[in-house]
């Protein structure tokens, strides 16, 4: 497998606390990588740095052999780097299908000129409908996201990201707040993404599901990479267990 994305010596701090303190790792094309660690380890920060929603004080983000560190989030999305929020952020003024249509129409919205010179939405509606059917939200297509329970909003967030045709999808705690059954359904859903050509980086606290779906783990602690490798190898390491439990 080849490297699709790489972060190199990323640093960022908030109020004197280092949230990322020299984080480096690579993401292989086609893999399902989980980024785990105790609370405050810097997982979401690293994901937001990769997505371009935060700028590092030092270090670089590479995507598809290109240094994207200085690119804003929307430009990274257009290169194929998708992102889902930990706290879901649907467009509440849109229906469920319109949320996905806007993402499906990313070529139409590339520039204001392109956007004002095109009006047909049928192709994007068809694509959005197909994604909603695949993801189990077809019956809610016309509903406002306000009326959807959290589990369905989380699925909508993933549907919107898939509609962008990403090469790499960064998922920030998609299982958070879900019931055990919903979490399993969501984990099963995101596990299918590498089979569809979408490489995944998952930040998640639900270790049971992470160990079930991830190909490889990167463990963060206090803004540093503590360990990386196959799940069964990483989780048996004493330093990883200590970071999680505080017990040697």
């Amino acid at each position: 497998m080849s490297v699709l994305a790489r972060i190199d010596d990323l640093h960022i701090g908030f109020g004197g606390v280092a949230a990322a303190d020299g984080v480096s790792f690579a993401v292989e094309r086609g893999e399902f990588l989980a980024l785990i660690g105790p609370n405050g380890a810097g997982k979401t920060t690293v994901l937001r740095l990769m997505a371009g929603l935060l700028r590092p004080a030092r270090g670089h983000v590479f995507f598809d052999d290109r240094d994207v560190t200085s690119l804003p989030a929307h430009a990274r999305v257009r290169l194929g780097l998708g992102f889902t929020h930990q706290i879901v952020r649907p467009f509440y003024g849109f229906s469920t299908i319109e949320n996905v249509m806007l993402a499906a129409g990313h070529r139409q919205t590339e520039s204001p000129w392109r956007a004002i010179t095109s009006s047909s939405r049928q192709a994007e509606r068809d694509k959005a409908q197909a994604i909603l059917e695949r993801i189990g939200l077809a019956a809610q297509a016309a509903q406002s996201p306000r009326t959807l329970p959290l589990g369905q909003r989380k699925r909508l967030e993933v549907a919107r990201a898939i509609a962008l045709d990403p090469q790499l999808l960064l998922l920030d705690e998609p299982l958070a707040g879900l019931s055990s059954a919903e979490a399993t359904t969501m984990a099963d859903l995101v596990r299918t993404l590498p089979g569809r050509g979408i490489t995944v980086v998952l930040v998640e606290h639900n270790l049971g599901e992470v160990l079930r779906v991830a190909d490889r783990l990167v463990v963060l602690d206090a803004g540093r990479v503590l360990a990386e490798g196959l799940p069964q190898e990483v989780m048996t390491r004493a330093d990883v267990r200590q970071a999680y439990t505080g017990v040697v």
Partner: protein
Amino acid sequence: MSAYVASLVSVIGINMILALSLNIITGFCGQVSLGHAAFYGLGAYTAAYLAKLGVALPLTLLAAAVMAGAIGLVVGLTSLRVRHDFLAVTTMGIGFVFLGFVRKQKWLGGELGISGIPGSGLDPVTYALVIAVFAVAVIVFSLWIKKSWMGFTFDAVADDEEAARTVGVNVSAYKLTAFGIGTALAGLAGGLYIYFARIILPDTFDFVQSIAILTMVVIGGTGSVWGGVAATIALTLLPEVSRAAADYRLLIFGTMLILVMRFSPGGLAGLVRRQRPA
């Protein structure tokens, strides 16, 4: 058409362009602006200055739109840094800066403004029809924006900027586009106004005027083209049908704003939507 009706058509047409131009910035793209009259004034002063130099009407109108749009883009840059109430205060400040500037410029007539502006060369009725054609063109343009992917994307930016970024939208470019188009159209309205009034005074473009334009947008229903059209016609004709309404214009506008915000935040368009069967 009598001269009086022609005058009413002219005022309604100019107000409609103003309301729909602000609607693109505030209604479509969600960027609050309390200084829209400044761009109306920029267009008016630009056109008046050039008209007095003998420049032909089509060129003065073009210059009015370009000047207002160019300054509007610069003001739009502030919307990339500040949002919501901070943007409202900033745009309000732009209005005061504009008035403070023109009032002190002798070459722009200072407090007395610019008088003796040459006519359009058309009779009042024909000129009223020209203004009406421009107003209809702005309605059609607004409806097209709403129908196009630009309208869809403006809605997303107005809803949640960060979410829009994560679906690949260059939020800054869209905000600047809204400011550029909206302020250029306000400048065009200013250009049309000078051939109608033949005199411009700084106070015509003050904060109250900005609020009057905003009132038309809000009462029509922010983001609604037809609501804005209906509100503009109603609010422009109101002082004409009642002397009392003319005397208490500000009081009436202010009360209407409060009532709309309290009982129908979606304005006239929201009321119509509620009356329609699902």
